């Protein structure tokens, strides 16, 4: 298809602005904008055929060209309005927040937001969209960090925000079943009243939906203790691309009857099916929770502290997180938080959770005495009361928030052998020099997961070109994962080859083609562009 034909078929409204770039003036005409979009897309298109690797003028994280899905018509809107009266949103002001991701780095152009309440409604929506060849973007709390939760073009947004029912809770087995739109914090509150807790916890808990957590296989702060969702999710109810309802909402701890289909959908980022209900195994609420905040003078000592911690606190350890001195200065500068201990190059947050306060405090005090006398730790403080615990946790949980105040943040979520984690941060600092404003490292060191963040006053393509693919090549060299828990979404889909062999990716493509032949579920995400 020639370039002119493409331009001739352009609608007058812009099809996509994939990044909120300050230099894009709002005075640009619709056609002007479309031209910029188009020309970059053509560069992209050419680029993407290089398997997404290597440097080039375009960026494999940006949007690909729009695939030939149908466009929403008045008849479509009439159908949706009849099925979901009052829950078919077309007002552009209301759509705005659902079209932009939490980081404000990706914006789509959807014109329809649907809010079903039941699995049956989700089924009808997907059956219709499949027949009409309309693309759908499932959306939970919209807190994802890789641009996977917002439309790229005009995909219909399928929101779980009204699917908030808790279905059952068994307080002997601790098994909870609920709809996919339940907010994680609300589930936590519900469970806490019944003396249980959710097996996962993350900074986004006030907004994220459990369905989104499951479809992205969210990790979080408690993974060290309770394991990943792949272990704690017992069953799922999923609606497939053609509207078929797959009810595998078992509440059994053990069930070895056939292939474990739910594992396909966990972490599939909405590309294989829309999760409508979840059954999850919840642990008992610990009677005693303590948090220690420690300072270490080197990463090596931090790792030795971790060894000691595992040995002396083993069974009560529920979290082991770290942040570096740069993170602390950002927290102090942007959020006015105070450092509770003396300044150190590294800080550790350790949480213990157990059934007996006196036992736990004794174990914790023995551990602290050991690490203090052996000088593995230079200073620290302990909290046993809820308010102080919250205050200490906020020093780790709010780093992401503090970074947003720096301007633009390039975020990398990497899994590496634990000894290598901080080497990457120091290497990046040396490699980028003055080009970056700040290079910080923090994260779930206990799980071997680093959150590497590089800030700059505004979006800087030259800086990006120095970071990528250097960071991915570095990770690949140490057989790490280029996305430990954030997923691939839109931004990282083309980098999958750094962490997975091509045969594996090809098989993923086959599974996608089998479950969603028309490719309407969350297109442009998770799988690389060249898979088609």
């Amino acid at each position: 298809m020639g370039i002119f034909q493409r331009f001739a078929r352009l609608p007058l409204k812009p099809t996509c602005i994939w990044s909120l770039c300050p230099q894009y003036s709002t005075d640009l005409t619709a056609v002007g904008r479309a031209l910029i979009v188009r020309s970059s897309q053509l560069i992209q298109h050419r680029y993407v055929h290089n398997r997404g690797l290597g440097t080039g003028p375009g960026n494999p994280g940006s949007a690909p060209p729009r695939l030939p899905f149908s466009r929403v018509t008045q008849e479509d809107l009439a159908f949706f309005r009849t099925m979901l009266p009052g829950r078919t949103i077309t007002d552009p002001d209301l759509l705005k927040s659902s079209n932009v991701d939490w980081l404000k780095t990706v914006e789509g152009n959807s014109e329809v937001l649907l809010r079903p309440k039941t699995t049956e409604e989700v089924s009808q929506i997907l059956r219709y969209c499949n027949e009409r060849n309309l693309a759908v973007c499932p959306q939970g709390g919209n807190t994802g960090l890789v641009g996977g939760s917002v439309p790229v073009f005009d995909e219909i947004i399928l929101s779980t925000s009204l699917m908030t029912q808790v279905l059952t809770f068994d307080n002997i087995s601790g098994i909870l079943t609920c709809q996919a739109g339940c907010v994680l914090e609300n589930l936590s509150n519900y469970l806490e009243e019944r003396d249980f807790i959710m097996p996962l916890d993350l900074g986004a808990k006030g907004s994220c939906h459990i369905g989104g957590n499951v479809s992205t296989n969210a990790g979080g702060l408690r993974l060290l203790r309770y394991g990943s969702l792949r272990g704690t999710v017992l069953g799922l109810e999923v609606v497939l691309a053609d509207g078929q309802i797959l009810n595998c909402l078992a509440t059994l701890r053990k069930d070895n009857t056939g292939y474990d289909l739910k594992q396909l959908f966990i972490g599939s980022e909405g590309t294989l099916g829309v999760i409508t209900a979840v059954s999850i195994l919840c642990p008992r609420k610990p009677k005693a929770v303590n948090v220690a905040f420690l300072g270490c003078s080197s990463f090596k000592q931090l790792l030795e502290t971790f060894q000691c911690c595992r040995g002396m606190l083993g069974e009560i350890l529920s979290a082991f997180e770290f942040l570096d001195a740069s993170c602390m200065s950002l927290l102090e500068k942007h959020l006015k938080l105070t450092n509770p201990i003396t300044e150190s190059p590294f800080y550790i947050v350790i949480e213990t959770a157990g059934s007996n306060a006196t036992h736990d405090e004794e174990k914790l005090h023995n551990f602290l005495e050991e690490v203090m006398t052996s000088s593995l730790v230079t200073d620290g403080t302990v909290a046993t009361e809820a308010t102080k615990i919250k205050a200490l946790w906020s020093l780790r949980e709010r780093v992401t928030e503090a970074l947003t105040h720096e301007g633009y943040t390039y975020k990398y979520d990497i899994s590496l052998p634990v000894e290598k984690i901080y080497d990457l941060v120091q290497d990046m600092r040396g490699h980028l020099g003055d080009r970056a404003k700040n290079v910080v490292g923090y994260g779930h060191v206990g799980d071997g997961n680093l959150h590497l963040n590089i800030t700059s006053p505004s979006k800087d393509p030259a800086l990006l070109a120095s970071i990528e693919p250097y960071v991915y090549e570095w990770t690949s060299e140490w057989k790490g994962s280029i996305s430990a828990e954030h997923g691939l979404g839109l931004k990282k889909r083309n980098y999958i080859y750094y962490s997975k062999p091509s045969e594996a990716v090809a098989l993923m493509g086959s599974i996608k083609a089998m479950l969603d032949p028309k490719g309407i579920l969350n297109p442009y995400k998770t799988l690389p562009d060249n898979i088609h």
Partner: protein
Amino acid sequence: MSGRVLVGVKRVIDYAVKIRVKPDHTGVVTDGVKHSMNPFCEIAVEEAVKLKEKKLIKEVVAVSCGPQQVQETIRTALAMGADRGIHVEVSGKDYETLGPLQVSKILAALAKKEQADLIILGKQAIDDDCNQTGQMTAALLDWPQGTFASEVTLDADKLKVVREIDGGLETIKIKMPAVVTADLRLNTPRYATLPNIMKAKKKKIANVKPADLGVDVSSRLEVLKVDEPPQRQAGVKVETVDDLVGKLKEAGRI
């Protein structure tokens, strides 16, 4: 002047905990519930420790009245920098009915025994909100008082206290010995750091009974009933402006 400061610390239910009324309505559930030092008492301890760091006073003594568990609260004060502690043992029924009048009698007796120059207390406890102990203690000792302090400056034997009052701020000068009660903005309490927590384990906590101080802890007050506040009515969401107008009319608001 002995250079000794007495700081009262009270063990209360942690302020982040959801309070539940006992089914028999005689009080609130305290069993198995997280307790911690009253936030205003923390501020009082911090102020005392600051004065010691500035070398304006010599010794900080932390005092708490109650059963065995209050020793944790005294240890926290020691970890923040207090030099020694005094645990006034009150338990059982006596502890349930222990109120500002009895505590102020105890503190007055201790102040005389320890020859304290200054008593710093929190302005009120977050469980009963009485705001009486400081004032009663000063009255019993016939000492001047600087309550709701947001700033305290020590100069030889005089204290300049900036008080938070309804109209704004009031600055007074009082002679020592005196009683000061701490308000929120007096300071930000420090975190007890590990080296100090370790040191605190070795500091002494003396045990004393109210009878030893000649104080009768029986109460003249009887709690008749404890109830929860009335439930807040849920709001109602409406779909359109017309619905809103309709509902307001129904409620007789317009």
